Structures are given as structure tokens and as C-alpha cells.
């Protein structure tokens, strides 16, 4: 569960100076890192993504219109930076699949191993839903996609995770859009 960020802290950072912003950064850094780490599955890229997101926060917090929207606003930045790093690495580095599998074999987190079998898009929704406890509308806002797309991706992700986890009996209805599954 994400650490609650007091609205006074966000408001102070939005209207205040360097000290207020840095206090906010210290508060949100763990959440930013954990989100990026869960989405990317590796430490160093996650730190890069969280750092880039904090730089964006530092520069643009003054333009945040609604303090109440801070959480989804900041998560959107983290997810976007993580996606950029993921894209860049997949373009420039060989065999990400093999690397993540090797890394995950030594990881203490079974869920991490299960997530590594998902595509980036599916992984994003699972992490935002089950790691960060966001609702479907909130996830839709973070990812900038329709709510239906979020629900569809969650359903596909659950289907893909089911054989890997194997310890729950939830029944999922088969989607009529089966053909779209492979596109995700």
C-alpha cells in the first residue's frame, strides 16, 4: 500500500520553494521506486525511472492544478518514465527475456517471477491494481487509456497468471476478444 501523501505537503511543494519540494520528494521516493521496480523488474532501470520522475516532479509541481490528483499525476509520470526506459533498453540491449528470467530466478519475490512472464502493458495494470491498490478509473487515468481497456488488460493478465500461481479458484469468463489477447 502506498504511503499516503498529506495534501498540505503537496500544496506546500506546489506553492513553496526548494525545501518543500524536497520534503515531498523524500516522501514519495519509496513509492516511485517500488512502482518502477515492480513494472520494470530490475533495480537499476527502476532507480533511473524513479529519478527521472522525481526530476519531472521537481520541475513541474507548480503546474499541478489539483492537489487531490497528485497521486495519479505522479504515478502517471513514473509509469511514463518506466515505459520510456523499457522501450530504450529493449531497443538497445539484447535478449531482455533471458535476462529477466535469470534475474528473477534469484529474486525472493515469486510474484515478480510471475509478472516477468507478462508483457509490459499487462504488467503495468497488474502492478497498479494489486501493488498500488488503484481502482480501474484511477489506472485508466494513470495510463491514459479507457477504463474498458484497463479491465480487459486485467482480465487477460489474470488469465495468464492463473497457471503460474495456481492457488486460487477464481473463474474467469472467456473473452470474446480472444484474438486480441496475443496482441497484448
Amino acid at each position, binding site marked *: 500500500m502506498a504511503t499516503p501523501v498529506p495534501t498540505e505537503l503537496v500544496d506546500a511543494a506546489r506553492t513553496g520553494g526548494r525545501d518543500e519540494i524536497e520534503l515531498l520528494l523524500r516522501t514519495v521516493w519509496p513509492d516511485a521506486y517500488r512502482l518502477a521496480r*515492480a513494472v520494470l523488474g530490475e533495480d537499476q532501470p527502476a*532507480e533511473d525511472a524513479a529519478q527521472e520522475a522525481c526530476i519531472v516532479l*521537481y520541475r513541474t509541481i507548480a503546474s499541478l492544478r489539483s492537489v487531490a490528483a497528485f497521486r495519479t499525476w505522479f504515478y502517471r509520470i513514473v509509469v511514463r518514465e518506466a515505459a520510456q526506459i523499457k522501450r*530504450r533498453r529493449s531497443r538497445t540491449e539484447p535478449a531482455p527475456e533471458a535476462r529477466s528470467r535469470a534475474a528473477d530466478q534469484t529474486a525472493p519475490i515469486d*510474484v515478480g517471477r510471475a509478472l516477468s512472464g507478462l508483457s509490459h502493458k499487462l504488467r503495468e495494470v497488474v502492478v497498479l491494481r494489486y501493488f498500488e491498490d488503484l481502482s480501474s478509473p484511477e489506472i485508466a487515468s494513470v495510463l491514459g487509456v479507457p477504463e474498458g481497456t484497463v479491465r480487459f488488460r486485467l482480465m487477460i493478465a489474470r488469465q495468464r497468471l492463473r497457471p503460474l*500461481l495456481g*492457488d*486460487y479458484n477464481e473463474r474467469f469468463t472467456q473473452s470474446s476478444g480472444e484474438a486480441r489477447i496475443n496482441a497484448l
Partner: protein
Amino acid sequence: MHSSFELSCKNARDAIAVPAIPLDAIRYGAHNSRNASAGRRRRRVVAAAVASLSLVAVAAAAEMFGHVQVSLNPSGEVHLSFDGVNGRLTQFRDPKGSDIQKAARAMNFPVILPKGLPAGTDAEAVTVLGPGAMQIVYNLPGAWRRSNHLLFVILANPKSVAPDDATPPKSKFSMQFGQKTGLGAVRWIVGGEEVIVLKSTITAAELAHFKAVMTARAH
């Protein structure tokens, strides 16, 4: 649903060890960026970590084409020699497109400007070394490159580039690049221009793309 899965996720999240916040790097990144709307980060300095630049006065001027000679030695250093400063060594920091065009117009060969660099790359400086060569220094994007984010690209008249085994000419002024990185340089010819790129954190794939796009522009 699957309360065990939800619980596993919560546990997995809590099990992630969070490193210390790199506040200095964040401050540096935030303060060295362009305005927020541009959304592009400008990182300067640290050039010394990648390449050192020295102006060295030596004895006598030697013959060179276009007042400049570019030499590459086997250890990966690039040596730029030129025979004068006034009117020839001109540098623009944070150059606009028009500054780069102006530098290109001062060359004595048909300049094909770099294209195909990684998205987010921006120019840090452009230097006119003489009508025979110009150099553009780029900031490569991405925090993962950390302290080695600069890319040095030299565009030269092929006649101003010395053969591989040649020693740098004795000249009044010279600059050396690449002795710190030891990564070497790659060179190729497009049209009537020789492109020399000092290797840095630019990856093989990025370099291949850069070369392919520039080569395509020449045809």
C-alpha cells in the same frame, strides 16, 4: 478475488528494498533542464570525465588542409590540429539550429548534418575549427548513461583527415579527445564529408542507426 494473490503482491511490494533518494542528481537534473515545456534535460559539465580538451601551443605551423587536420591514433584518441584561432575557432554553446547551419555554411565541403541520433538527444555545443572541420557535442538522453552522456561528432573534409598511421602535424593549436574513455572512434564517409564519432555510451545499435540514417541522406 484471489486474496492470496493480492496478499502476495502486497508482500512483494513491501519486500522491495528502496535505495536512498539520489537528491543531488535530482537537483542537478531539475536545475540543468531547459524550461518545463521543452521537457528536455540539459546536462553540461562532466565533459572532463569523457574527454579532456587542451589547447597546446607548439612550435611551428605545418601544412594542413582547410587550416585543420584531424588525426586518429590507434589508442582511440582524436587529435585536432589547426593553425589559428581568430576567425577560425568559433564555438556556440547551447546552439540553435541556425547556429549549426551557420557553422555548416562556413565549411569548405558539402556538410550533411547528423541525423538519426537517439530520440531526446540535444546539441550541447558546436565548434568551427576551420573551414575543414566542425565538431558538434551532443547530450545523449537517459539517466542510465549517468556521467558519460556526451557524444562528440566531428564532420570533416576528407582531405583534412590524416591517414591512420600519420602522426599529428606540428601545429600552433591542438585539441585532443578520447584519451580518458579509451573507447576509440568510428569513421565513415557520406557524400563529400567524413564523419568521426567518438564512442561513448552510444550503443552499437544506436550508432548503426545513426550511420544508416546519415548515409541514406547522402543519396
